[in-house]
């Protein structure tokens, strides 16, 4: 099982979301799945958290700088009348074990039905296991993937964008190393073949905003959109 506790020994993050994706997050332009990947990365990465903080401040500035629009004369009274209404109950997250709390960033915890070892992992061949996360809408797909140590993934490219956030372990892709907190953003031109590090399982959040194009015969097997 995964044994590292990254909350105690944070490793430096070396791969970040692109500036345009961070801007799109701040502007509210992302889908739920991609916003989830960004929120999770920034929950691990202080630099991106600060970048988003600056962008939110820019948003606040742009918002307060527009020409104010006249508000209905009864608007304040209508809101005042509602102040004592009970607030809608916040969704209650299931109790999670220590391993899950230490590996899974909080924004993602709310999408899990339980602790990592109790999730309904779905085996995909002998290569990896996955759990699909509940998102509203079907265009974007978010999964938690658990890849066996040393596993070579089938070569593939994407019809759209693929966002990957490493939560535990690591992998190599075209000679580049990805570890805990690292973020990869690939578009339809990028064909790649990640190889999980040999020293432990690799746990990733993977978000796809269009079907994967499979380059090999194993392809069909791992195409999440064909398997739904």
């Amino acid at each position, binding site marked *: 099982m995964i044994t590292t506790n990254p909350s105690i020994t944070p490793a430096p993050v070396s791969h970040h979301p692109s500036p345009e994706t961070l*801007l799109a997050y701040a502007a509210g332009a*992302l889908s*739920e799945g991609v916003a989830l990947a960004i929120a999770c990365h920034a929950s691990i990465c*202080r630099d991106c958290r600060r970048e988003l903080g600056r962008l939110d401040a820019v948003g606040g500035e742009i918002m307060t700088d527009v020409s104010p*629009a006249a508000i209905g004369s009864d608007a304040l009274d*209508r809101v005042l009348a509602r102040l004592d209404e009970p607030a809608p109950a916040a969704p209650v997250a299931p109790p999670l074990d220590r391993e899950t709390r230490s590996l899974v960033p909080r*924004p993602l915890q709310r999408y899990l039905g339980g602790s990592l070892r109790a999730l309904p992992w779905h085996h995909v061949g002998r290569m990896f296991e996955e759990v699909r996360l509940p998102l*509203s809408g079907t265009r974007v797909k978010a999964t938690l993937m658990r890849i066996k140590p040393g596993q070579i993934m089938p070569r593939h490219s994407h019809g759209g964008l693929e966002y990957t956030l490493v939560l535990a372990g690591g992998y190599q892709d075209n000679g580049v190393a990805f570890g805990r907190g690292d973020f990869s953003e690939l578009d339809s031109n990028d064909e790649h073949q990640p190889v999980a590090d040999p020293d432990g399982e690799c746990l990733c959040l993977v978000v796809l905003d269009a079907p994967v194009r499979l380059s090999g015969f194993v392809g069909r097997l791992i195409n999440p959109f064909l398997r739904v």
Partner: protein
Amino acid sequence: MFATVLSVPVWPLPLYRRQQRAAGRNKHGVAGRALTNEDLCELMEAIAARKDRQAFSQLFAFFAPRVKGFGIRRGVDPAAAEEIAQEALLTVWRKAETFDPEKASVSTWVFTIVRNKHIDMFRRHAYPEVDIDELAETADDAQPADHALASAQEGSAVREAMRCLPAEQLLIIQKAFYEDKSHRAIADELALPLGTVKSRIRLALARMRSALPEAVHDHD
């Protein structure tokens, strides 16, 4: 001669500002001039600590017309924009205790609430937010804490940093926020190559980063 000159208000500026501030605070229905972040923080504190409806009314008078104006600027019809303003301010009231003046300015915090209301109303999905484990944070003492963020978010500093952006970069940042457009849609609309839009965003963010260094003051 003298009488004419003296009829022009020649109060020292701070006094004039104080009077302006007092006037702004007494009129609910007026969007008024800008309150400082300090003023807004005081109102937030009163709401969080005492459920102060008077303070909420003042905060409403400041933000509701701006939130509505922002909605209209984003192409929302006025009735829906007003509904967003009301819902956002109601959320401000409910979540007032979670506002931390050391982590964000009030406008920044309200903006994130407004952003989520827009997404909720028009796209009907959740928008996951950054959420860090404070315990994990304190274990990571190699870097300064996030407290200094608020100083980097002071409206005047942000405004100044934006004013210093080249027009072509500012335009793209504004389009992103006004039209909630991706860089692809912006590139299409402006008939610019995607790479140009990306590099302008990259340059703008780098400039903002150097103009708003977070570690201006450190609470540690």
